[in-house]
């Protein structure tokens, strides 16, 4: 009977044990550490926008409600970026000559949109709906962090599936009263689990269906 493997295959076989170990370590590092790292997810990386707009000033200092600009956040799946008209509602009179607002004025004059950069993004196979979260007592700051303190916005949460499921499995840990949804400085009560369980019942959150695949993947 002829030899299938050459003699040096013995050496390769022994080496492959180490290679296999190395591969296992590498895979663990890549899948478990790199893909979940803040570096890969671009967490805590401030995104510079074409207009130096500050949420810290507008939402924090001036106390303008989130919905003044993001009008569709409680009505639609998508939280809109405000139209240039919304900026010009105030800035046609306030700081109307500021060079920082030149891009906004040009957009208003020409009708060409300001090219804002996206900060939070989920893959296309995730059907995320803002309005249902807002209307069932999940606050802005739950997912976006304290935007009212950010001069330039960055992502604070990883937005991976395990992170979503963390709340979808235990909504009572994060739910808050509806009138506190837009309160960026909301602090959970000490008896959050008790309060949360009541709110889950009161708002009709169906825990059993929250972890169904098709809740997010359709």
């Amino acid at each position, binding site marked *: 009977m*002829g030899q299938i*493997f050459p003699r040096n295959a013995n050496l390769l076989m022994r080496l492959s044990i180490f290679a296999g170990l190395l591969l296992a370590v590498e895979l663990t590092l890549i899948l478990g550490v790199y893909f979940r790292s803040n570096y890969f997810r671009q967490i805590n990386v401030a995104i510079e926008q074409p207009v130096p707009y500050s949420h810290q000033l507008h939402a924090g200092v001036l106390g303008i409600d989130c919905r003044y600009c993001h*009008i569709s956040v409680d009505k639609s799946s998508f939280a809109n970026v405000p139209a240039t*008209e919304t900026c010009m509602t105030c800035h046609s009179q306030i700081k109307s000559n500021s060079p920082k607002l030149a891009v906004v004025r040009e957009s208003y004059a020409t009708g060409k949109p300001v090219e804002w950069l996206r900060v939070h993004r989920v893959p296309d*196979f995730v059907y995320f709906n803002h309005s249902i979260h807002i209307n069932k007592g999940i606050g802005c700051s739950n997912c976006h962090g304290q935007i009212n303190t950010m001069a330039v916005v960055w992502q604070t949460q990883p937005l991976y599936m395990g992170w979503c499921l963390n709340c979808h499995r235990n909504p009572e840990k994060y739910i808050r009263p509806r009138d506190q949804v837009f309160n960026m400085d909301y602090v959970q009560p000490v008896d959050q689990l008790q309060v949360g369980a009541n709110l889950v019942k009161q708002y009709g959150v169906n825990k059993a269906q929250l972890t169904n695949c098709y809740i997010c993947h359709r």
Partner: protein
Amino acid sequence: MQTLRSRRLATRARLARYGWVGLLTMLLAACHTDMYSQPRYQPYEPSSFFADGRSSRPNVPGAVAAGQVQTDTYLYTAKVNGVVGNVMPFPVTANLLARGQQQFTIYCSVCHGVAGMGQSIVAERASIVPANFHQQRLRDVPIGHFFDVITNGVYRSDPVKGGYQSMFSYASRIKVEDRWAIAAYIRALQLSQNATVDDVPPAERAKLGR
């Protein structure tokens, strides 16, 4: 027979040696992102198809979305024969006033202040003078006036003659029903500054805390 068998074995040996190359190629080729970024437009996604680069298209002039025919002129304009009316197009309830308060606080209080006094942090920093809802002129205007102003904005003198828009239209931002709710709430605010305890129904007086 013998040669055929040895040739088959040799093929198998070659497969064992180099087969992994093909396997790896297939594995790597399986990595793709067309589910991550699917061939459809997310909101605001740029488009190369349209000249202005927008995938979200502006409304075609004159187009009416299904179920949005505006047959009730008074509901949408607050005007009867071009004159603003003084009645609400639907009944005022406590829920409607609560909705009005919420919407007023979001959109109006930024300039006019939460109590409608025309004072706010934005107005102060920008040195603009928003209307005070408690002045006699605005206490006397019909309720439709507030709806009309929210819908069309306010011009200081004629825009053709160099006037400017001191308040923009909020028609694209506040729903028709909510605009009426705000108008009703402004009336409630005006009442609140000129009411006595006798105006409060006896059943509700306990809530005043005295």
